[in-house]
């Protein structure tokens, strides 16, 4: 995520968003701020993990990036090209390169289509191959790639378990040779032993095909395992973005800290320590008041937190946080009296 100041041309991020916003209209002309001012960059072969609690806008963000939902404001750049304003017809060739894997392997595939038909559906829509036989051959190749035995080719989804169904979803997403895949909680519906199989598969495919993933999940141990960078979202905003190791070693935002502390660890060392609990629940995303969205639950809440939005600033190279505690008042010179020096390197 380093900006390149030298003469060497900087690598173009595969996906970049600038101030991306998605608001939904709700009753009485009010606005639900699902995704608010998101700036992110994602390079080929890398994984960006997006974590947050339910309702924080992670899935909406994923779908907005793919333009399955039209953004309200801001820009989405794909390989340097602004795709925000492209219409359906112009988007179509790009759709091949941007795919999504859904959370629920039970509802994302058509129960009346056999495995091989499901996998070849996208190829038929995009007329990738001139004849049926080639499409089928490719579908079988994809089954091999994702580790689905060929004998399931003519099975129907109800005959398969969750892990195999998820493999169908993955094979289908790969069928058009995408470069970018949004993985929307792809393992949360699976048992741990199957989850590990799918995570390994996704990581192997990434190495092999140089894919970029945006990995949306609420499971922090999974996201740490698979991501290069992690973005923590809270109520539509990004509160912290850093390299995976850095985020876990040195979380800066109080919400990130609370989130990390809330995971029950599978060892006895932390057994007797009290759970670190953040009080209260997520407030409403409908017409949110100005100020930090986390302020109501934050134990360090200061007056300014409820008055203005904290800026999303780089506290150490590659580590971005939106919090007055860490950033002081502002990026522009005035210093805050309460700003701490927590953000050391």
């Amino acid at each position: 995520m380093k900006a390149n100041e030298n003469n060497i041309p900087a690598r173009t991020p595969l996906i970049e968003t600038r101030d991306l916003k998605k608001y939904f209209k709700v009753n009485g002309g009010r606005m639900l701020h699902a995704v608010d001012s998101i700036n992110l960059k994602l390079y080929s072969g890398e994984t960006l993990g997006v974590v947050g609690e339910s309702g924080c806008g992670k899935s909406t963000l994923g779908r907005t990036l793919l333009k399955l939902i039209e953004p309200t404001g801001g820009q989405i750049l794909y390989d340097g090209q602004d795709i925000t304003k492209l219409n359906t017809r112009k988007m179509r060739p790009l759709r091949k390169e941007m795919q999504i894997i859904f959370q629920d392997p039970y509802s994302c595939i058509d129960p009346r289509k056999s495995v091989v038909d499901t996998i070849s559906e996208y190829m038929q829509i995009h007329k990738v191959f001139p004849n049926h036989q080639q499409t089928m051959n490719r579908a079988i190749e994809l089954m091999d790639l994702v580790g689905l035995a060929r004998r399931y080719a003519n099975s129907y989804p109800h005959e398969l378990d969750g892990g195999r169904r998820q493999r169908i979803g993955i094979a289908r997403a790969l069928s058009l040779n995408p470069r970018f895949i949004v993985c929307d909680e792809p393992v949360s519906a699976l048992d741990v032993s199957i989850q590990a199989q799918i995570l390994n598969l996704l990581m192997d495919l990434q190495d092999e095909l140089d894919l970029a993933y945006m990995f949306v999940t609420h499971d922090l141990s999974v996201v740490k395992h698979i991501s290069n960078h992690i973005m923590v979202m809270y109520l539509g905003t990004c509160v912290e973005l850093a390299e995976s190791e850095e985020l876990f070693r040195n979380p800066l935002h109080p919400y990130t800290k609370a989130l990390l502390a809330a995971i029950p660890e599978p060892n006895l060392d932390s057994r007797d320590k009290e759970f670190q609990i953040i009080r209260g629940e997520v407030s409403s995303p409908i017409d949110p008041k100005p100020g930090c969205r986390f302020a109501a639950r934050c134990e360090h809440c200061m007056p300014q937190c409820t008055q203005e939005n904290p800026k999303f600033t780089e506290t150490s190279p590659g580590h971005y946080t939106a919090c007055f505690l860490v950033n002081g008042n502002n990026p522009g010179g005035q210093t805050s009296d309460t700003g701490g020096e927590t953000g050391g390197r």
Partner: protein
Amino acid sequence: MGEKDEKLILDIQDLKVIYKTDIETVEAVNGISLKIEKGKTLGLVGETGAGKTTTALSILRLLPQATGRILSGKICFDGEDLLTKTEDEMRAVRGNLISMVFQDPMSSLNPVYTVGQQIGEAIKLHNHDLSHEEVEGRIDEMLQLVGIMPSRKAEYPHQFSGGMKQRVVIAMALCCEPELLIADEPTTALDVTIQAQVLAMIRELRERLGTSMLMITHDLGIVAQICDEVCVMYAGKIVESGTVEDLFRGEKHHPYTVGLFDSIPNISSRATRLKPIPGLMPDPTNLPVGCEFAPRCEHCMEICKKEKPQVYSEGTHKFYCHLFDSENLKTGGSENESK
């Protein structure tokens, strides 16, 4: 064994449960035995289809009537076998002496009654002699206990968030001060921060009320934080059991338990690759002749495919695996817990 019965709140012996339809027979629970001491929490860990929930439903005798059958075994609650009780007697047990919290709070509450009415219903059912005021008082007390303002008792379930609903369900389960609380994945549907709130609450309530608990979960993190004893279930069998120390600090484990631990991404160290257990859970309508885990086990021996293993024990730590057969049973370093 050697335990005095008064110390045990629940003693399940050799329980076998099947689901029988015209077409097939699902062997859901295949002869499990477990014990819970008074005031202790037992964790029942395993993947989907291991038979955890079936075990819980058998205790309350809530198996689907058309298909579920308890073939054999005993479920002794406080010294009395629940399986010999009549339906009327069971009704006095459910919700009163043993209560259960289900996984999904959204579907365990009735959307057309207020939460106060629903908690009150459970109280009135088991305490006929309470006056209206006393019941209301008790509802307020329960809501306070789980951290909800009593003034919200006139609200309907849809007005509460997921975490709050689960608290209401827990309040309902605890309102008659049961001696045993069965919690079936109580936090799986909740976000981590809310899960932490609910777990902290469960921990605190358990200390305050001295309730014994059967905690069903697939999350080893929750086991480490909440439970005193653990049983690991696989395909209807308990493959390993012991205290939490045995499970998390013990040197020897059942190969399935090892696989389970290797499958979780470790949050404190980064392994490049996970080591999943190969293959899938066996078909419960057609279980292997030998050890249920044999087809997926990397230590599988000839005997594993032919014979079911016995239970081998080292102090409190028990294994259901041929690997622990006599020649492998070294006594060195066994950490016996004095009960």
